[in-house]
């Protein structure tokens, strides 16, 4: 992973952005979302949760839109198959929402085949636009 994380553009005048994390193929996921400073350090935990029914999948990011400019966000997940079959599929989709709409450059999707359990990592950098 390099410094050139993909960019998520958010409107300075828009509402506080949110991240929605969804996992397909009815797989279980235990995930962690961290917000980092503009240098990519000093993380703050936005969420550490699972996708079991009834749990939220959308989380607010930061405190103000302006404060998010050039900051990094990472999301990681351990994905496990409830049935434990071989060669199963997984799909992880992170959608950034502002004013109930998907932000430009969003969503970010990872998918593939796995057996039993797999793990994912993804990151992005906010850019506040007028």
């Amino acid at each position, binding site marked *: *992973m*390099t*410094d050139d*994380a993909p960019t998520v553009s958010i409107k300075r005048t828009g509402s506080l952005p949110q991240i929605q994390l*969804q*996992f*397909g*193929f*009815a*797989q*279980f996921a*235990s*995930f*962690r979302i*961290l917000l*980092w400073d503009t240098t*990519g*350090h000093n*993380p703050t935990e936005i969420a*550490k949760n*699972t*996708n*079991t*029914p*009834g749990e939220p*999948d959308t989380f607010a990011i930061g405190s103000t839109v302006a404060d998010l400019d050039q900051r*990094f*966000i*990472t999301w*990681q*997940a*351990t994905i*496990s*198959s*409830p*049935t*434990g079959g071989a*060669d199963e*599929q997984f*799909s992880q*989709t992170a959608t950034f929402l502002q004013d109930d709409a998907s932000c430009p450059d969003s969503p970010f*999707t990872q*998918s593939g*085949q796995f057996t*039993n*359990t*797999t*793990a*994912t*990592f993804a*990151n992005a*950098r906010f850019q506040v636009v007028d």
Partner: protein
Amino acid sequence: MKLKTPPPKLSALFAIVVFASLAAGQELVSRNVSVANPQQGQLRQIRVQTMEDGSVKIEGPSGLRDAVSYQSADRYVVIVPQAFMASFQTDQSGKDFLSMRFEQRGDDVEISFKLRHGATARLVFGSTALSVLFTPPQVAMLRMNDGAAANQSPVANPPKSPPSNTVPAAGNSSVPATAVPQIGIPSLKDLLAQIPSLIPGATKDLKADFSNIDLSVPESPAFTVLGVTPNTIVRPATPRALGTSLLNGLDKNGNFQSGLAIDTAPYMLFNGQNVTLQDYNDYYLTRLLSRTQFSFATTKAAASDDTSTRLALGLNLTLWDKGDARVYHPQRGKDGDVLTCFKANIQPPDAPSSATPSASEIAAINARAIAANSRVADACRDKVRKANWNATSWTVAYAPSWITKNGQNSDLKWNGGALWTSFAYGFDGLPSLSKIGQLILHARYRTKEQVVDPNHAGQFLEQDSTLFGGRFRAGNPNFAFNVEGSYVHQRVAGNKTLNSGQFAFGAEMRVSENLYLVVTGGNGPGDAGATRKGFFMSSFKYGFNKKSQLNPQP
């Protein structure tokens, strides 16, 4: 209904076992059997001689070291397993016994001695033969008293004034008969271990392989209806892979080639990325579609000069599954629900050192997460599988098939099909049964099935058949049983119909830690269509096994 072939000596068998378990076998005297039994069908010839000193010598291969003995009233009985006597004289008498009798009991020879009042007998194992040594009445009393003094075990202590017909015999001693040996009191465990050898006709290591009725619904019905087991089954992960597989299965003229086998869950294939756990749990239709399996197969006729090709489609629908691991049942707890267990134990990967870690750092973090959580996930699934082994479910499968005589798709004609359904009931809501029992009901209908013509070698007949079957199994580590049966209606070419039935049962009871009494019976597939009327049983076995075989709980 009346049992035409009653179980032989079943009640006596149970009585012996129960007596041995409860009374610690005070009268059963034998030695540890450490020599492997000879294979059945290789019975050993034995010779019996009355010696001048009054003892009786039993000769046979390997010294007959697996022989056992016990006392029954005033008779001392020696059983030599897997043996026969070519000739013998009954009702012989000796110096220290009133009579000697021989009896062939199945594969075993029973030699019994009627003892004089107060006398005892014991078995002595030599290198080439067994000797039955008799102790006169006055010596026997002395031995009893010494034995009581030597062993303070409350179980093993014989009464100080034993009944005159209770005469323990030492089974594993090489001390001459004239000496007064210490009595080796066997432990309860040893006694129980000897039970299989003491019951004539009982089979050791009896395998409860009575179950032969297939009540399952095929996961890939297309393969089943064609009667093929493909070497290579394509399981496409993407719609594109499915399309590629189908295209590869066509020849240059657009006709299906033989040997194509595809198995997939179409809803997950085309829409799986949008099926979240929440959606799966909220909507029955999502669950039904997600669990639906589709199969497709083609095959060529077996005969080399037959150019026909058969193809089949298959659908497997799980209409109901209370054991579905993707359904969230928090009320079942961590041991009864996979997702609850996952939620409590599976952790996300460790946080990286920065928001932009190196690829190697991420690889290491993910590898650690996969390794640790895979073990956790396995443990969760295993626990829940055991807890939900009898979950209620209902599955249906259907497979139509077609045939083209010349290999052209335009010539496809209906070639019959099959329908299967199984309902497994776990006695939900009945606490006393829900943990130990399961009832399975099954039905199968099949048309235009090709079966071997029993009257014309190499030829086949077309038949339609309907099968109804059921199985009830229940049990725990101490007692388990299984009953199953089926009824088959077949109609072969020429409108000849045949009705037949099968049934089987098995039961096991734990006698000791590693010893199970097993009883099985029923009639087999070979009895189907037999002209007998009513209830009949073509097989009945009883014996012992070291492992539980019928306990349905995993």
